[in-house]
């Protein structure tokens, strides 16, 4: 086996076991930490696929924002330090749904590999940032979804400011 395959195997093993530990850990905070390991593992997989932009975005968005928000939410909720039950009552149902989705995805990818058009290898020197950036603002490309997403984010921002705004007369 080549070195890249070994790197992938080790990463995959760490990622998957971190995901399992995340579901199975008794404390919410530990679950969040295991989630961080799993997300980092996915970033490493992106790196081995030479998709450095996606690896960095994975780090920036998931660990930099989402995970920190999750950790804050856990810190601000009550009883976050106590150990809870290992699995919640819906665990087996959720595992079943996840298993079905995984099987369906695997089936689709295998069929695609069998019959679909073979993917082109782009090589390490391929700069994926420029085409992506152009596609995001191109009217032929993804300009409309991009703008819709930014309007959504703006609405969320205004909503957050409205909720947090201190009204005159109430409170200090």
């Amino acid at each position, binding site marked *: 086996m*080549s*070195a*890249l395959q070994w*790197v992938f195997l080790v990463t995959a093993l760490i990622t998957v076991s971190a995901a399992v530990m995340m579901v199975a850990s008794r*404390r919410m*905070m*530990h679950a969040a*930490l295991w989630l*961080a390991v799993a997300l980092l593992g996915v970033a490493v997989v992106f790196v081995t696929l030479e998709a*450095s*932009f996606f690896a*960095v*975005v994975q*780090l*920036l968005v998931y*660990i*930099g*924002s989402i*995970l*920190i928000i999750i*950790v*804050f939410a856990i*810190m601000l909720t009550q009883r976050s*330090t106590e150990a809870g039950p290992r699995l919640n009552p819906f665990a087996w149902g959720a595992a079943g749904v996840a298993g079905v989705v995984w099987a369906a995805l695997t089936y689709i990818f295998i069929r695609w590999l069998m019959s679909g058009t073979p993917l082109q290898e782009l090589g390490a020197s391929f*700069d*994926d*940032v420029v085409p992506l950036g152009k596609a995001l603002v191109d009217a032929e490309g993804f300009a409309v979804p991009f703008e819709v997403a930014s309007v959504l984010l703006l609405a969320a921002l205004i909503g957050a400011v409205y909720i947090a705004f201190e009204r005159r007369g109430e409170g200090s």
Partner: protein
Amino acid sequence: MAVFWQDPITFLRLWLENLLLSWGVPADWALVIRFAVGAVLLVTAALLLVILQLWLERKLIGRIQDRLGPNRVGPWGLLQPIADVLKIFTKEHITPAGADRIPFNLAPVLSVAAALMVWAVIPFSATVFGADLNVGILYLLAVGALGELAIILAGWGSNNKYALLGALRTVAQLISYSVPMTLSALVPVMFSGSLHLSVITRAQEVWFIVLAPVPALIFLTASVAEVGRAPFDLPEAESELVAGYSVEYSGLKFGFFYVAEFLKAFTVSLIFAVLFLGGWRGPGAESYPVLGFVYLMLKSGIVYLLMILFRGTLPRFRIDQVMDLNWKVLTPLALILLMVIALADYFLRGTLPLVRILGLLCINGLAYLVLDRVLSSRERLRRRLVAQPVRPVARPENLITSSDVGGRS
């Protein structure tokens, strides 16, 4: 084949590569080994640099404060940091009762790791860099998030209210200041048309600090705040918070945080030198890459000295002043400058280089003046103290928002 005295690192890299290949190691494994050796060497060099930095900082701060600084161990006290490191090794590790062990022990390691990970993408000379990442700047910003995570974990895992309070306000400060930092880092990206740090370095025929002095100033201020040094050292304001998130740490674990702090300070100087001071560029750096390394270190050393000067001369901000400076001054200024510079550079790009430089300089100066006007006209509306009479306290002089009457608001 590179010659040793022109480019020692590349010479050694090729030598190691050939050695491994001659031993019959497959090419892809040779690559993995090469990267691993490079990473270990880079990390060791960075950590050794911290020892020198500790000495320099203590000596200079000592001189600023009219003391001698360390002068007992070794010539000029040069061995003092080594003695300190050895001392810290012998100290006891204390885990507070009720602490969450995993986050508590993970936090110091993660803190140092986050600072070291930045070094992976810095182009140290024309030929020497860790990972040749085409999204280098994004990576720099992304890795900072790991440092924030480490601080939250330290504060939360310690099971201590002071630590948690310190961690919360540190993270508030870090998240806030990464906004102007990112916005001003976009200016070099616009000038060079790439997120790749090597390309940004090569594009600096004229240093970007000349083309965009105000964004450079914003970036420097925001990065000083990002590493939590004076005057933004609220995270460990000794007189207010005991020691912030690191209050429960002792021995080597505290040492990790301490090292991470100094390492981050030098790392942001390095980033500033790469983005705005032309990185390794300098006379002869193309043909003698080792010279480029010297230039880069000199430039980031100068930025670091500036940061020591800040620390030695500026009093600490209050938390509301820190937030005001960020959200009312730096962020709007960075946003406006980003748009104005983008437009101006679009029109000035075809003209003579001198015209372009002067035009951009004028625009920077203009933006600064307009902001100064707006802020001083708002001066009357500034918050008044309600509960207590104004007393003469030492206040950090903010060049932009300070009033002529000094301490009174």
